[in-house]
């Protein structure tokens, strides 16, 4: 193992496993840490102070915190496809071989060329870019913006596909608890003992929250012992689930919560069959937010110098990780709690340079600590820090009363007090309320079912956290209907917490409010001067609080400074709206397994695998895979295959899987009346054993869907929809049945998946079907006329349905069998049809033949066409009411100059016609005023031996024979076409009736 000694590691203590050393690399240099370290604690243990560069000025930055609120210590973690930009070193668990790199610097962290930005700092104030870069106009995209974009951003994304897997899961509970500190564990105890189903989420990999760093005595036991006893009790309860490495990030409606579990981020890569992260949707009757509080910095000049650290974070590094951020520590506090860092530092044998306390009074106990520790207590504030990328060197102090002092130290711990973590409780636009005694916002207006407890609720004492957490857990369980005995709450003493609010210390040099976005106190003042006084304007103008930490350490200080300069109180100034997620969450986790081929489900037709064996090319149609054409050896392109298929049908017989059509059983005595109301034409008068084409409108009078419906019995119709609209039509019909026409006795069932349905088409269809169908069945024109529909027996006894309908214009039947027989039917058709040259055909050939026949389909049923536009206006019954009848009569929908379906063919037979070309009158220059329509569908017609198409053209049907232009500037084409009858093939329909 490589790597130097851990120069800043205490010789004992800490929750690290010294028997498990781990080597890791940072910026190419190898170090050693221990199991139980974070990357931040391991860097500290190795004496690394400089870990990153800031966003705008590229100032050197160190580690400020020990949690997910970290604004500075962002790294690129891992390499290659797994590179994760902006990873908080404070949250990255150390593992063997970890690789991390600092970001936003060039060429290196120590010598960052972009630090030149600091020279321009006088100009680069908040919003400077709104005032310049305007001339010359073209320079923005060409010069200024690319430069700004390169300079901005933080880390680099991998830029190649994420190789890891994610999934998503649901969980349900009575009581959901965020946080495993004293309040969270107490809540879990109370709720669990009451019999509630409990889920506790903890973002850390260890349970205990601040107890892990600050210790304490609970029920007479040292904190660590109390934690193990509590965890043992929770484990023994039947329905308490504890999820570590899991952050509750959002609350949604109806008691749904979002959580992200970092399942395997603590390993170099996920083990086989496992995911990297899992997104949890947790449904909870009640939620106790015991997410603690966040210590806040004080804004003073040089407060971003590496080595300046939150006081509580310093305790965490020393106590939990046995790592010492500094050898000689100064402490700057405005409150009682900050002093605990002095106690911790002394206990760990560190030198204390001084404690700078902004309050007027320092307690006798602390005075005696100072004399015991041999350090001075300065009444005053830190007004400046000397140092740089190598860390803090000297600290300037403005003493109360005006004197100045200097303190030499290599680390400065800062405590400006604590802010309850009000994110989760505020995500439903609840505004937290100000509490003077802690000078902080506490939750108010939390979403239904959610309550905050402990430090998250502004109760900072250990005893108070336990009491509040326990009470909240018991109440939540009771609200959820679980009323078992909760027993007694754990107890502990409450520490004193008194503070004198202090947000900003005047001084020379940049004083940072938002470290990550380089927003300074003077930026806030400038924003106020320019009228950006609303906190939302402040945020947007200066970008304060918009960085990856979402302002967890900066928002309150920013608005406190704004309040001061605008002469308002902090609560009058107000907070910005809090927005989820509480911590940034990988986009991959939200997607889960819905990516690549599994982005959406795939629907397969009954003949799919058979078609695949034939080498079919498939096309995506909605969720379906449909055979598009069946290439044969030697065919040079799709057109040759499709042409062959069309010719085979027109000259012999072919078949095509049409199982994708929506199929609906419409049952009941009123089925006919029901269909009369949903279609523009009548079905109640359809004879049993017959089929009829129907057209359906929306209530706004425009065409919704079409299809063939057959009457199989007096009270049983079999309705088909287009493939695209199958689900929607079912929903629409259910709406009609349940809401619009509840008086009709009709029942609807989707049978789309029950039937394998094939169109068998071509002049030899009857010859082929005779081989398949029981000889007793009469398939003659008399026995089974055009538009007939009935059940028949097949050879071998299987029952099938035959429908004599044709989309191709040929003599054709659709045959359907129960779906598990679908593949057998195809094989039997192939076998029986061999003598007739039976040819399977795909959706392309289907499309060719429908265009040749002038049948409308998806491109014409585009949601803006009327029945008359499609040439089907005569189908509209005048004898009955139906959906869309009244609105269909509006003036613009019956105007004579509407674009209507017409046939289109190039005058030059060799010309290829393309969909999307527009129709312009001959001899005119194309413009908006003479754009008369467009080509909707095209095909190469083997029958006519030229490209043909359908179009929607103004007054098209009156203009048959007119020569116009197909104008297609996108493809650089403009050519003459003739408007013609849309039925190109067999216009009197003799073939399909024959």
């Amino acid at each position, binding site marked *: 193992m490589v790597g130097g000694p851990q120069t800043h590691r205490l010789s004992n203590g800490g929750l690290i496993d010294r028997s498990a050393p781990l080597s890791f690399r940072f910026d190419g240099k190898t170090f050693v840490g221990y199991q139980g370290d974070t990357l931040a604690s391991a860097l500290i243990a190795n004496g690394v102070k400089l870990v990153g560069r800031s966003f705008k000025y590229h100032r050197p930055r160190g580690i400020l915190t020990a949690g997910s609120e970290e604004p500075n210590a962002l790294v690129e973690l891992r390499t290659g496809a797994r590179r994760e930009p902006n990873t908080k070193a404070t949250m990255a668990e150390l593992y063997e071989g970890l690789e991390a790199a600092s970001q936003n610097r060039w060429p290196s962290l120590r010598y960052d060329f972009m630090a030149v930005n600091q020279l321009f700092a006088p100009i680069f104030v908040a919003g400077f870019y709104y*005032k310049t870069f305007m001339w010359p106009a073209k320079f923005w995209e060409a010069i200024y913006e690319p430069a700004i974009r390169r300079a901005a951003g933080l880390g680099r994304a991998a830029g190649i596909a994420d190789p890891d897997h994610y999934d998503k899961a649901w969980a349900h509970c009575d009581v959901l608890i965020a946080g495993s500190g004293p309040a969270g564990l107490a809540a879990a105890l109370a709720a669990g003992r009451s019999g509630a189903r409990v889920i506790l989420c903890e973002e850390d990999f260890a349970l205990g929250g601040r107890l892990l760093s600050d210790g304490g005595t609970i029920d007479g036991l040292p904190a660590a012992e109390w934690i193990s006893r509590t965890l043992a009790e929770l484990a023994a309860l039947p329905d308490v689930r504890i999820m570590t490495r899991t952050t509750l990030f959002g609350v949604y409606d109806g008691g749904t919560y979002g959580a992200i579990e970092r399942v395997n981020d603590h390993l170099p890569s996920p083990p086989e069959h496992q995911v990297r992260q899992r997104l949890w949707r947790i449904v909870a009757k009640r939620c106790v937010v015991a997410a603690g509080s966040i210590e806040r910095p004080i804004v003073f000049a040089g407060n971003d110098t590496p080595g300046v650290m939150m006081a509580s974070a310093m305790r965490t590094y020393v106590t939990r990780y046995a790592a010492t951020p500094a050898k000689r520590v100064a402490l700057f506090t405005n409150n009682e709690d900050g002093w605990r860092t002095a106690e911790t530092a002394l206990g760990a044998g560190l030198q204390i340079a001084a404690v700078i306390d902004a309050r007027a009074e320092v307690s006798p106990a602390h005075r005696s600590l100072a004399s015991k520790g041999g350090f001075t207590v300065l009444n005053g504030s830190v007004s400046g820090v000397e140092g740089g990328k190598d860390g803090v060197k000297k600290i300037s102090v403005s003493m109360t009363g005006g004197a100045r002092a200097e303190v030499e130290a290599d680390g400065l711990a800062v405590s400006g007090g604590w802010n309850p973590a009000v994110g989760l409780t505020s995500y439903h636009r609840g505004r937290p309320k100000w509490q003077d005694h802690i000078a902080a916002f506490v939750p108010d207006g939390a979403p239904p079912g959610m309550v905050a407890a402990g430090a998250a609720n502004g109760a900072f004492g250990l005893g108070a956290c336990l009491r509040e957490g326990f009470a909240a857990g018991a109440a939540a369980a009771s609200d959820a209907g679980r009323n078992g005995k909760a027993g007694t709450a754990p107890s502990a003493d409450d520490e004193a917490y008194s503070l004198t609010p202090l947000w900003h210390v005047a001084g020379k040099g940049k004083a940072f409010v938002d470290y990550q976005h380089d927003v300074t106190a003077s930026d806030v003042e400038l924003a106020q001067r320019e009228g950006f006084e609303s906190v939302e304007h402040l945020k947007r103008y200066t970008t304060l609080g918009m960085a990856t930490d979402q302002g967890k350490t900066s928002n309150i200080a920013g608005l406190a400074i704004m309040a001061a300069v605008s002469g308002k109180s902090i609560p009058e100034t107000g907070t910005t709206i809090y927005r989820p997620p509480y911590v940034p969450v990988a986009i991959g986790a939200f*997607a889960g397994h819905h990516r690549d081929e599994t982005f959406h489900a795939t629907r397969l037709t009954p003949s799919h695998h058979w078609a695949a064996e034939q080498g079919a090319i498939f096309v995506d149609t909605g969720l379906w895979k449909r055979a598009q054409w069946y290439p044969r050896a030697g065919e040079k392109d799709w057109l040759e295959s499709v042409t062959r298929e069309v010719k085979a049908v027109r000259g012999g017989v072919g078949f095509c899987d049409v199982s994708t059509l929506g199929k609906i059983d419409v049952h009941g005595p009123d089925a006919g009346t029901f269909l009369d109301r949903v279609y523009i034409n009548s079905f109640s008068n359809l004879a049993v054993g017959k089929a009829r084409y129907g057209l359906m409108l929306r209530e706004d009078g425009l065409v919704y869907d079409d299809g063939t419906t057959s009457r199989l019995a007096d009270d049983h119709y079999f309705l088909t929809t287009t493939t695209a609209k199958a689900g929607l039509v079912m929903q629409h019909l259910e709406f009609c049945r349940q809401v619009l026409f509840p008086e009709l006795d009709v029942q609807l069932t989707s049978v789309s998946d029950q039937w394998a349905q094939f169109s068998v088409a071509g002049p030899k269809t009857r010859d082929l079907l005779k081989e398949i169908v029981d000889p007793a069945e009469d398939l003659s024109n008399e026995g089974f006329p055009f538009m007939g529909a009935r059940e028949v027996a097949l050879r071998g006894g299987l029952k099938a349905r035959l429908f004599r309908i044709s989309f191709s214009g040929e003599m054709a039947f659709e045959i359907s069998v129960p779906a598990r027989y679908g593949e057998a039917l195809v094989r039997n058709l192939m076998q029986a049809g061999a003598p007739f040259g039976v040819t399977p055909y795909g959706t392309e050939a289907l499309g060719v033949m429908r265009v040749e026949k002038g049948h409308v389909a998806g*491109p014409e049923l585009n949601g803006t066409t009327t029945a008359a536009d499609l040439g089907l206006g005569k189908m509209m019954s005048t004898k009955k009411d139906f959906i869309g009848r009244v609105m269909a009569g509006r003036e*613009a929908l019956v105007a004579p100059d509407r674009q209507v379906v017409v046939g289109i063919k190039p005058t030059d037979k060799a010309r290829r016609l393309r969909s999307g070309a527009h129709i312009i009158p001959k001899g005119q220059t194309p413009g908006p005023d003479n754009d008369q329509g467009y080509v909707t569908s095209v095909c190469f017609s083997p029958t006519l031996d030229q490209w043909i198409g359908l179009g929607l053209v103004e007054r098209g049907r009156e203009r048959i024979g007119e020569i116009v232009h197909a104008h297609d500037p996108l493809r650089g084409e403009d050519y003459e076409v003739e408007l013609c009858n849309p039925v190109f093939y067999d216009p009197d329909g003799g073939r399909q009736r024959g």
Partner: protein
Amino acid sequence: MKYSIFSLARAALSGHKNWQRTWRDATPKDRYDVVVIGGGGHGLATAWFLASEFGIKNVAVLEKGWIGSGNAGRNTTIIRSNYGLPGNTGFYELSMKLWERMEQDLNYNTMVSQRGVINLYHSDAQRDAYARRGNTMRINGIDAELLDLAAVKKMMPFLNFDNARFPVQGGLLQRRGGTARHDAVVWGYAHAASALGVDIIQNCEVTGFSRDANGKVTGVETTRGKIGAGKVGMAVAGSSSRVAAMAGLRLPIESHVLQAFVSEAIKPLLPGVMTFGAGHFYVSQSDKGGLVFGGDIDGYNSYAQRGNLPVMEDVCEGGMALMPMIGRVRLLRQWGGIMDMSMDGSPIIDKSPVDGLYLNAGWCYGGFKATPGSGLVFAHLLARDTLHKEAEKFRLDRFRRGAMIDEKGQGAQPNLH
């Protein structure tokens, strides 16, 4: 004060102590020639055009909160003019042309960035529909290019071309499309309008309309008192129905929530704006480095300005399906805006049936890109009482006449547009 690099440098010498307010903090007068309700991009742009183009400077813009607090500050900043139907095509191109000169017009850098907008297609049918639309654009003098697969691969090699459920086949590109800095648009119009004498009045919520004996609107009642007006224009997308109801009107509009998302800032990754054609996902990268993305509306009526997880998941699924390289990029922030979803997916600009009250509403999720165009045509209507020629088809009575402008062909169901 004129903004430029020189004024910045000068200000730096004095420690930036001499900057003035970006817009005057006005208190309401008794009466204005025109009162515009809504201090978003559209309302402020309307005021600026009234003052600068039509010489009407006795104008107030009333904003119930802080300017830009509605959809102007809650969108994905995309500008484009790639519409396919008469009415929309010309209007959005008018707007695009105004974007192209906005910074010089306003003396404010709104960061209009024409890095291109591409709509990807994944099927022949989609290609054909895009070809129809692209040709419409070209016929209207708008730039459009139909890219094939090879061209898309070259421009965006990071898309999933290998194992996609719905493989990309090409795209419709408008190079002049792009993004602009949304807040800066609001501030820029406020800055410029205020300089021409427009009163911008924040924290002033309209609570009712003053009407004369004939029912004509003569002013507004507000939380800061009554304000008389020759004409009142409303530009309050998201709240149009609520404000119109104060005048007794029902509109063909529903309010829906549209969520949007931004990732952590990363170094430049994406070239321009992209829309996925096989799912609900569109994305661009901001100058600051965040991926700004969104998808479909949640689908239910809402004034809550927040959405739910299913849509958030749906959007991220679309993103991962299109470009699995963003799997480890983290989503930083989620927000929701209230969309005025109209019955055909297109806006309404017209005199209302109530004399003296003018409508600018129903922008669906197309409102941001329309900002300058909307300001111009609405100012035109307020100043001249006739519709600008590029807004003639946005009349309110088009639904009654059956002359809908329905780009998606979904009919009278707002949540499908």
